[in-house]
């Protein structure tokens, strides 16, 4: 079911009678036990905010355990939403409001709430046992710890129980509804339309009418509570953002990536095959794609990551669009297969949704520490093009661009995303697919068979023909041993090996002919902030703020990590200093200094979390 609205019609739902305070943007974090439904609450708030025309950016953060122990600090699940009347690029640093469903959630998140920020607590969950689970000796409400904040206590559990009475739900089930109560309250507070959420409840619980009813009631009870109680003196109003015209939809990174792959398949006249082995945070790409068999998508849950990459190569050999997706440990396992793909010179995509490492690391946290593995994690000289998405919506375009280059140059291409992008959400201007440039693929046609077919004859871009089994006369055999250029026969000839190593490298370099030059936003001298991947939003925002403070700062963002855009060297040399902020210990920095020797410095953070704008601004101001 699709429903759409235009942002100009925003105001006709019943709105609060209390005074409204207009603000440009708000950052709210919803925290509670992982069983409390915080992710659902966050998603809904994101959705209705986007629907009301705000720009939004989100940051979900949940525990690694499936069901972490209830009420403990380890079990806290959070969802941060930033919505604004202007274009925004990050989920926000300091919180304007924090909604905490229990003491563990409160104490682990309080530090991020701004002074005088709004703190909404479920006062029913501050019993002795709750405090004990949170490893608290004292009730934080009584220690003065909360004195800097505007604390509003709401007996959410009690109020929810009351609201759902008569629906026939057990107390336990009734208590499950309290996130909808909290939702109603938050929606009221920020003047959000709850209609879409009512629709959501309807469709989600269509087989459980009592639960649907209870949740509906909890939601409206929460809304009404805001309107009625005197604790709240006003609501906040965030006007629609001035986004470029178009039809928008809220997307998450992994979803946009999946759709981008489907679009790439369609644009190139191919059917999509994805071979993958489940792993956090990459599994959702597989899940999403498995739902689109009627689009000709074939998904393969392989026995391991090695089989996954190999199955995608098999697909590529057969002329299909072969893709594999994984995260750090799984990508490591694909190294040998990727090396073969480089040798075979077949187009395919390897998607790495990076997570905290090394080893099993921090599976549910984000990091950018697989760049050098993407570059060098294969034996021998095995270069492949690498590009990285910068935000959830950008995953769509990234997938298309990756496939365009892969097929143009007959090469595997690595796409980097990360946990922050994968699970984050933002408004996406829905493209008109018909207007996107097609991806031209030409498979050579039947040969006479008179002469052996030459699978490694190259065109002007050094790419070889993609001859497909089933084509008469083009039979050929390829493999991982070094091959004679042209014929593709095994060759141990020293000069040929040198030639092939050079050719494979040059072919990847040739991608620079087809990619956008790097663009600078802001000043063209002074300090350049160079970013890649998921730190785009924070770097963009921080450089803008620094300029607002009168600093000479430019911002360049790299979509392509291999090859670098042709103009990158020139751009770098325009500046006095180059700062490369990364969520690793300096991986892009090594590549930039190794190649351009511009003395770039790094701001490096490896904490499983994205940059805050504040920490970036501080460093930029220090250097600029």
């Amino acid at each position: 079911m699709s429903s759409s609205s235009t942002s100009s019609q925003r105001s006709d739902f019943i709105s609060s009678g209390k005074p409204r305070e207009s603000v440009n943007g708000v950052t709210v974090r919803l925290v509670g036990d992982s069983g409390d439904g915080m992710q659902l609450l966050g998603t809904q708030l994101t959705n209705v905010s986007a629907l009301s025309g705000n720009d939004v950016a989100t940051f979900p953060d949940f525990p690694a355990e499936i069901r972490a122990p209830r009420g403990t600090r380890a079990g806290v699940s959070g969802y941060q939403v930033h919505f604004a009347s202007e274009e925004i690029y990050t989920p926000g640093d300091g919180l304007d409001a924090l909604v905490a469903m229990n003491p563990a959630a409160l104490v682990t998140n309080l530090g991020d709430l701004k002074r005088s920020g709004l703190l909404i607590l479920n006062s029913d969950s501050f019993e002795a046992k709750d405090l004990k689970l949170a490893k608290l000796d004292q009730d934080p409400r009584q220690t003065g710890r909360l004195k800097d904040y505007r604390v509003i206590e709401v007996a959410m559990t009690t109020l929810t129980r009351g609201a759902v009475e008569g629906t026939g739900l057990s107390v336990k089930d009734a208590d499950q509804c309290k996130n909808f109560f909290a939702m109603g309250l938050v929606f009221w507070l920020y003047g959000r339309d709850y209609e879409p959420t009512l629709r959501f409840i309807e469709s989600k619980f269509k087989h459980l009418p009592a639960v649907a009813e209870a949740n509906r009631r909890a939601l409206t009870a929460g809304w009404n509570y805001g309107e009625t109680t005197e604790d709240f003196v006003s609501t906040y109003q965030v006007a629609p953002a001035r986004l470029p015209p178009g039809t928008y939809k809220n997307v998450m990174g992994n979803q946009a990536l999946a759709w981008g792959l489907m679009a790439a398949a369609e644009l190139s006249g191919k059917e999509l095959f994805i071979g993958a082995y489940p792993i956090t945070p990459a599994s959702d790409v597989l899940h999403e794609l498995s739902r689109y068999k009627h689009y000709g998508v074939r998904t393969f849950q392989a026995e391991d990551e090695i089989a996954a990459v190999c199955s995608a190569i098999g697909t590529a050999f057969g002329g299909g669009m072969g893709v594999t997706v994984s995260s750090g440990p799984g990508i490591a396992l694909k190294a040998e297969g990727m090396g073969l793909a480089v040798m075979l010179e077949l187009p395919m995509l390897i998607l790495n949704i990076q997570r905290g490492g090394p080893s099993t690391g921090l599976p549910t946290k984000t990091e950018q520490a697989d760049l050098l593995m993407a570059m060098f994690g294969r034996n021998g000289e095995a270069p492949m093009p690498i590009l990285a998405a910068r935000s959830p919506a950008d995953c769509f375009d990234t997938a298309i661009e990756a496939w365009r280059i892969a097929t143009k140059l007959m090469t595997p291409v690595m796409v980097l995303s990360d946990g922050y992008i994968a699970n984050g959400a933002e408004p996406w201007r829905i493209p008109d697919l018909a207007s996107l440039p097609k991806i031209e693929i030409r498979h050579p046609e039947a040969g006479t068979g008179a002469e052996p077919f030459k699978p490694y004859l190259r065109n002007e871009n050094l790419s070889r023909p993609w001859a497909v089994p089933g084509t008469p006369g083009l039979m050929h055999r390829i493999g991982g041993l070094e091959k004679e250029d042209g014929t593709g026969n095994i060759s141990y000839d020293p000069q040929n090996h040198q030639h092939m190593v050079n050719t494979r490298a040059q072919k990847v370099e040739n991608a620079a002919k087809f990619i956008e030059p790097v663009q600078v936003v802001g000043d063209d001298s002074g300090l350049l902030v160079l970013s890649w991947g998921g730190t785009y939003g924070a770097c963009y925002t921080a450089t803008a703020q620094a300029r607002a403070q009168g600093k000479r700062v430019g911002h360049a963002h790299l979509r392509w990590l291999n090859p670098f855009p042709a103009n990158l060297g020139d751009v770098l040399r325009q500046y006095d200093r180059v700062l490369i902020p990364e969520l690793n210990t300096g991986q892009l920095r090594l590549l930039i200094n190794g190649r351009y020797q511009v003395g770039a410095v790094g701001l490096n953070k490896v904490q499983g979390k994205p940059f805050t704008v504040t920490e970036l601004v501080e460093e930029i101001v220090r250097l600029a």
Partner: protein
Amino acid sequence: MATDLPVLTANDFASDQDVRWCPGCGDYSILAQMKKILPTLGVPPDQTVFISGIGCSSRFPYYVNTYGLHSIHGRAPAFATGLKMTRPDLSVWVITGDGDALSIGGNHFIHLMRRNVDLNIVLFNNSIYGLTKGQYSPTSPQGKVTKSTPMGSLDFPLNPISMALAAEATFVARSVDTNIKHLGEILIRAAQHRGTSFVEVYQNCNVFNDGAWDYAKDKAVREQNTVELEHGKPLLFAGGKKGIRLNGFEPEVVEMDGRISQDDLLFHDEKTSSPALAYMLSRLRYPDFPEPIGVFRRVERPTYDYQVNQQVEQAREQRGAGNLQKLITSGDTWTVT
């Protein structure tokens, strides 16, 4: 097919590459049989694909003039699975060795079997690592002295037929490199089977493990040491002089000296729904028993590639061919003007 296909010969399947196996290697014989049977299958070279891993045996694809992929060690089944899922129209063969299939590739091997991808996998079992110059393999007997085991290997050998059966294979057979008639027939039957057809071929590596299969190859003794499985027939060997009978659950060799009738013997049934009989047969090993050659098991089960594509069809029938523009525009949207 109604159209007249050109009559193909073994030569149509010979590539232009020099064959690089050691003189006398059993691989030659298997290659020859393969080139002989391929033209009889009604599939032209351009619709045939050979995929191999790494090893002496895995050089095979270079020598047949079809499409070919010489991949990486142990992973050929995975390449083949991806290919066949997206190109069910192609005829796919996987060529592998005992190390390739059962050592590094053991996992892909079992998952290929259980999925029942419609392809044929031929394991050249020489009980040794040929290409890396003679280390013991997963099928080498315990005590095997090799470069890496100067005091004898300790690993208990894997039985490829037992493994395939336990991994739910639908077609499981064994043949011998130099038993060319038998081998040819088995390859044809493998090709005809819908689903994963697994064929173990005893192959002599005359350089690093010469004579390993002499008991099953030598004209003089092979009738004593092997028993040919034929569907619906009793297990007779040694030119009909001996047979195999069940004693409870235990097989035993009996002399067909007149006191025992053929009806008392174990009758082979390729098609029992349980693989237990085939499994029991896989346990007959020289020298205690004659080793069965032929088809241990052949049952029908929908193939993986068929079902994958069937789900695509079904989804299209139920939901209509996907419209991507509609998909990305579905759900909650808003318009900025």
